């Protein structure tokens, strides 16, 4: 899952990025409204954390422009402005959640996970596909009830596939949602990661559709 942070305070942006990466997200950061709007408009993020008081272009305008252009990524507004009239303004502009500063990092992670899960059509916090279960609240994966140890990259790939079970996910799509924009997409690291995942959860769980991509599905009961 890939997140966009738009926050002009560098120290805060850095800590946010750190915390979100630790929680298993790929993160891009923009430090002003114009850049943030541009990234959100051109890259396929799974969610955005948006500050309201931004240089160059304020957060509400960024959000309104995204929504007008049909960008429907979940947006969490993170701002110091906590009055209800200000919250209503944010929600009316198309926000999906609103957290006021100062805040707890855990809450941001929790809320982002819930936003992403609901945006891909899952109402329950636990996603299941055959023997594999993903607890979206805690960011934990289990296989046949046993905790499964995954690296950050493996987790992101599996998490994205778990959010879209039974759907063919192209290589490009997977790359875009799993790696931040500084990642060199020409390497064949994705194939390596898929191979490792297959070893851990069973090769039959992730099928390769030739020329199209990958699909995650529960194996037929024998």
């Amino acid at each position, binding site marked *: 899952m890939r997140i966009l942070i738009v926050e002009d*305070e560098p*120290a*805060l942006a850095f*800590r*946010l990025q*750190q*915390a979100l990466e630790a929680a298993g997200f790929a993160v891009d950061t923009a430090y002003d409204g114009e850049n943030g709007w541009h990234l959100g408009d051109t890259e396929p993020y799974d969610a955005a954390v948006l500050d309201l*008081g931004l240089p160059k272009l304020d957060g509400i305008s960024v959000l309104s422009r995204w929504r007008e252009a049909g960008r429907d990524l979940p947006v969490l507004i993170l701002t*110091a*402005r*906590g*009055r*209800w*009239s200000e*919250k*209503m303004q944010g*929600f*009316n502009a198309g*926000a*999906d*959640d*609103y957290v*006021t*500063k*100062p*805040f*707890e*990092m855990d809450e941001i992670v929790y809320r982002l996970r*819930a936003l992403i899960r*609901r945006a891909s059509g899952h*109402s329950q*916090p636990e996603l299941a596909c055959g023997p594999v279960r993903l607890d979206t609240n805690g960011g934990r994966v289990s296989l046949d009830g046993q905790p499964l140890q995954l690296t950050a990259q493996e987790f992101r790939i599996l998490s994205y596939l778990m959010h879209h079970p039974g759907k063919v996910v192209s290589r490009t799509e997977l790359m875009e949602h799993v790696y931040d924009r500084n990642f060199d997409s020409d390497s064949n690291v994705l194939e390596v990661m898929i191979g490792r995942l297959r070893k851990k959860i069973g090769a039959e769980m992730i099928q390769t559709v030739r020329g199209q991509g990958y699909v995650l599905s529960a194996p037929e009961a024998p």
Partner: protein
Amino acid sequence: MSRPLPSLSGRLVAAALLWMLALLLIGGAVLAWAFRDSVEREFGQRLDAMLRAIIAGTEVMPDGALVVNRPLGDPRFDQIYSGWYWQVSSPGGRLLRSRSLWDQTLTTMPGGDEVFFHQHQGPKGENLLVAERDFLLPDGDGRVHVLIAADLAEVAAGARRFNLLLASALGLLGLGMAVAVLIQVRYGLGPLRRMMADLDAVGQGERPRLSGAYPREVAPLAAAMNAVLDKDAELIERARTHVGNLAHGLKTPLAVIGAEMAATPDAGVIKTQLDAMRRLIEHHLGRAAAVAGAGRNPGERVAVAPVASDIAAALAKIFAERGLDVRVTVPDAACFHGHAEDLAEMLGNLMENACKWARRRVRVSAEGVGDGVVIVVEDDGPGLSPQQAASAAGRGKRLDEMTEGWGLGLSIVADLVAVNGGTLDFGTSDLGGLAVRLHLP
């Protein structure tokens, strides 16, 4: 505060009335004196004429006796002590007198050939006007003294009648003028009274500044007042913006420190202090916004329904994980008189709190009551115990300190309710949880 001066209308009316009273009194006195003087003068002329008639009729008989032929025709000279008398005396000691004098003699003054008028007491104690003189008979024995007297009561009665008439006429005139003065003062000072009512409205927060046109003399005052009010509003607005900017500005560094803290082990004390700072900022920010926002742009009417619906939609997103059933049934006519921001803040905090505590359902209803509105926010959560509800109603702002989970929300709501002149009641909902009843005038 110095002792209040008498009112302007009081001064104007008192000055006008005193001046009028003095003029009326002087005028009345002059008129009364002039009337009495002219009546007395005319009375004197009558006496003088009668005196001449007596002189003309007085003769000395061959035997030396004095007679008055053709005595005066007036019968009052024949009635005893009627107040009308004449008397003729000769140097020889002979005396003739009117029948009305009977056996009384009026003392005479030594006189000359000119008529001499004076006042004298009559036999009955009446106040007489006396006219007397000497004259020489053609073949007589020297100077004869003649006197005629008449009761002044007649003159006095006439003067009294005139004075009565004069007093009532002047009194009526004075009354009419007093009424005119009152009307004039009332009408003339009307703009000042209007200004006072305007200022009252400003004080009550019903209006931001003095409105309406004032006459030339007062308009500069109103303009100066408005300038002061505008300046005042601007200062408040600037202070509010300042507080807001400061508090909001502090929040981001706090968030940064908080985030750094999370990455540092053993930061317990710092974290506690950080939380305390956080709460302090929220508290004062909320309060500053609540107080500074009060009473500005009065006359604004905000429909409750769209605000409540917007908040419900926002809360549905914020509490999406809980799958709450937030139902808003507010008639379109329900309106709040005040700031849209204040309404949003009160409703938002109450509804958010209800969502926090609710198991499944939150209900928001409202109805217009008179000119105001009553909004009820209910949930099916644990609610307040009767003791908690009682002390909440009694102490208002203390509730947040005794009830976990209310946070700062309630103290902000309580401030806003107080500033908007409303009331806040806590009860039990038929949903099972807390019912907060918000009455806004």
